[in-house]
């Protein structure tokens, strides 16, 4: 393990900025020149996609993960109605593009703290669909081994950290991951998710403020889907775009159309690579509409009909299908083949998930505490 030399140029620069320069310039002086929140452009051609490292296979693979996301959640809805899912059930209908794009833009050693509309993140990182269905059903094979349900899971081996209900409690955790990367001088990035509702909580402020003061390699993603349960944006915050808050923390804010897979991918890719090269945090506000209720128990009757119609017309999967047809000659045969492969994957996943046993009740108390040998030995200097 390597630690930065106490007098590394970065440390020196930090100290200099903090003491000498700051004092000389007075307290008004801002450390970083940040102008205003930026609105992302659509990715208008295959060439533009290639510029951010995506080839045709990558594009089709992301499309597949969107289809798989929707398929898993459709199956989940059915399982819930059949009484096979204990507790509650939540979907990310309308957020498939944003989740898949961000999960795909993360590097292999990057980590993230996805939340409840982010099944696509898990799929993009490599979580097997059957594990997600087993998770929904509270089975032993789910990543939470039946100890927690629905979307409260993550596979740590894939660089994901499981969420808690108290959003945005995972933002300070993501900042802490980034702090570890900075302490060890690793070229890794943490991605932390929150929503328009949890933007109103103090954890969001503390996490972003600490990340800003230390210029940590973390990207904050706000899934702004217009409603926090039933509460509309105008009752959650009083500014036009949540991304504007980034300016107050001394880093960049970007607003992106969360229904456009490639726009989200490009902005996340740029933000992650900027963070990786020492450029500090970014706040990306990914704007979508939650096309269903908060959970299956909620009919979302408070969402204006016109808004739903507008976003149905902008369905992220249909949009990206049109993009593929237009820009990379995606054929009806390929579409049929893909749909059939996804269906087969879902059927296999269902079989495996239903075969997964319920957790053994005798295991209830296992692991309340980690055993001493759960961690490696000390690292001697």
């Amino acid at each position: 393990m390597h630690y930065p030399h106490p007098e590394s140029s970065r440390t020196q620069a930090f100290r200099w900025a903090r003491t000498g320069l700051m004092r000389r310039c007075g307290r008004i002086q801002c450390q970083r020149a940040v102008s205003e929140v930026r609105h992302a452009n659509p990715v208008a051609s295959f060439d533009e996609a290639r510029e951010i490292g995506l080839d045709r296979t990558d594009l089709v693979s992301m499309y597949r993960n969107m289809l798989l996301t929707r398929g898993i959640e459709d199956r989940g809805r059915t399982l819930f109605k059949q009484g096979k899912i204990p507790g509650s059930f939540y979907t990310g209908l309308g957020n498939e593009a944003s989740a898949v794009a961000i999960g795909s833009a993360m590097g292999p050693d990057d980590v993230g703290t996805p939340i409840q509309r982010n099944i696509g993140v898990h799929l993009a990182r490599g979580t097997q669909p059957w594990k997600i269905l087993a998770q929904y059903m509270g089975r032993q094979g789910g990543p939470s081994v039946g100890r927690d349900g629905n979307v409260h899971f993550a596979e740590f081996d894939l660089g994901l950290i499981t969420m808690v209900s108290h959003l945005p409690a995972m933002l300070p955790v993501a900042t802490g991951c980034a702090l570890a990367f900075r302490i060890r001088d690793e070229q890794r990035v943490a991605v932390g998710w929150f929503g328009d509702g949890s933007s109103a909580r103090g954890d969001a402020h503390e996490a972003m403020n600490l990340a800003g003061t230390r210029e940590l390699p973390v990207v904050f993603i706000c899934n702004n889907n217009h409603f926090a349960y039933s509460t509309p944006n105008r009752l959650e915050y009083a500014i036009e775009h949540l991304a504007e808050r980034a300016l107050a923390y001394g880093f960049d804010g970007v607003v992106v159309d969360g229904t456009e897979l490639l726009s989200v991918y490009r902005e996340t890719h740029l933000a992650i690579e900027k963070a990786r090269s020492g450029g500090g945090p970014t706040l990306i506000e990914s704007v979508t509409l939650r096309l269903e209720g908060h959970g299956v128990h909620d009919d979302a009757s408070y969402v204006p009909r016109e808004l739903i119609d507008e976003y149905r017309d902008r369905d992220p999967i249909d949009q990206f299908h049109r993009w593929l047809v237009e820009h990379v000659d995606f054929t009806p045969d390929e579409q049929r083949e893909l749909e059939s492969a996804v269906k087969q994957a879902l059927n296999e996943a269902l079989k495996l998930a239903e075969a997964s046993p319920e957790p053994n009740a005798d295991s209830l108390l296992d692991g309340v505490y980690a055993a001493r040998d759960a961690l490696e030995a000390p690292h001697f200097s």
Partner: protein
Amino acid sequence: MAERTYLEAIAESLRTEMQRDERVFLIGQDIGAYGGAFKVTNGLQETFGEWRVIDAPLSETAIVGGCTGAALMGLRPVAEMQFADFVSCAWDQLVTVAAKQHWRAGTPVPIVIRLPSGGGFAGGPFHSQNPESSFAHVPGLKIVCPATPSDAKGLLASAVDDPNPVLFFEHKHLYRRIRGDVAEERFTVPIGTARLERDGDDVTLVTWGAMLHVAIEAAAALAAEDVSVEIVDLRSILPWDSDAVLNSVRKTSRLLVLHEDTYTAGFGAEILATVAAESFEYLDAPPQRLTAPDCPVPLAPSLERRFLPQVEDVLHALRELLAY
């Protein structure tokens, strides 16, 4: 062996742990250049640099949540709450995130939260509390409350070694008042083991933290009257050494629990319930608690003296128990 104050023992332990394991880093408010509100971390930033002794913004949530993230990434964070009272601001990160993470996801969260706690110096309602009982109800956390310099050093080493979130309550009133012999080499005091402070036959006095020293004075006074008090220094609250307490009660048949935290649902209640359930037939008197009353910690010395258990209160409680 060397004589150390309680504060010096903690400082020495932090330095040792940082030298021993590169993964250990400190984070807190004013702990770096300033050396900490109580100077526990004085000089550490000079030795280890500003990325291992990190001055954080006034953000308890970000500090504790940040520790959890860093721990998940393989580091061994040690956070300082400037006063234990402020840990309320980080409740969610400890109770909701850190404490449940291993059980839910199988990922250990080896973090230590140092909590300068306790009253006795006119700190008032927000700089004097002993909130250990609030956290004792949370499965997944560990809690230690050392009362001596040696235990402070050894328990801190154990806390850093432990793969779970550990709340390390260090009593502010002991920082510079208490001295004792401390082994110079690194050693650990196992979490969850009590220490027999004083051997006795007539009554068992269970306590921890600063109250140990009140208990010692009271026991010495009663020794002059030929009453022998056994003092069990609990040292750890979660897990707690019920065997040590039950063994002592089975010997003396009388129990007084003394703590600085308030009465209702204070940790003394847990101890009494366990003793009543598991040693009822050994008891010669109803087990009793002597604690602060159910009231916020007051500021004025006259009020605080009434609030905190005093030696004469302990003597009174012990005599009543012996006379039952």
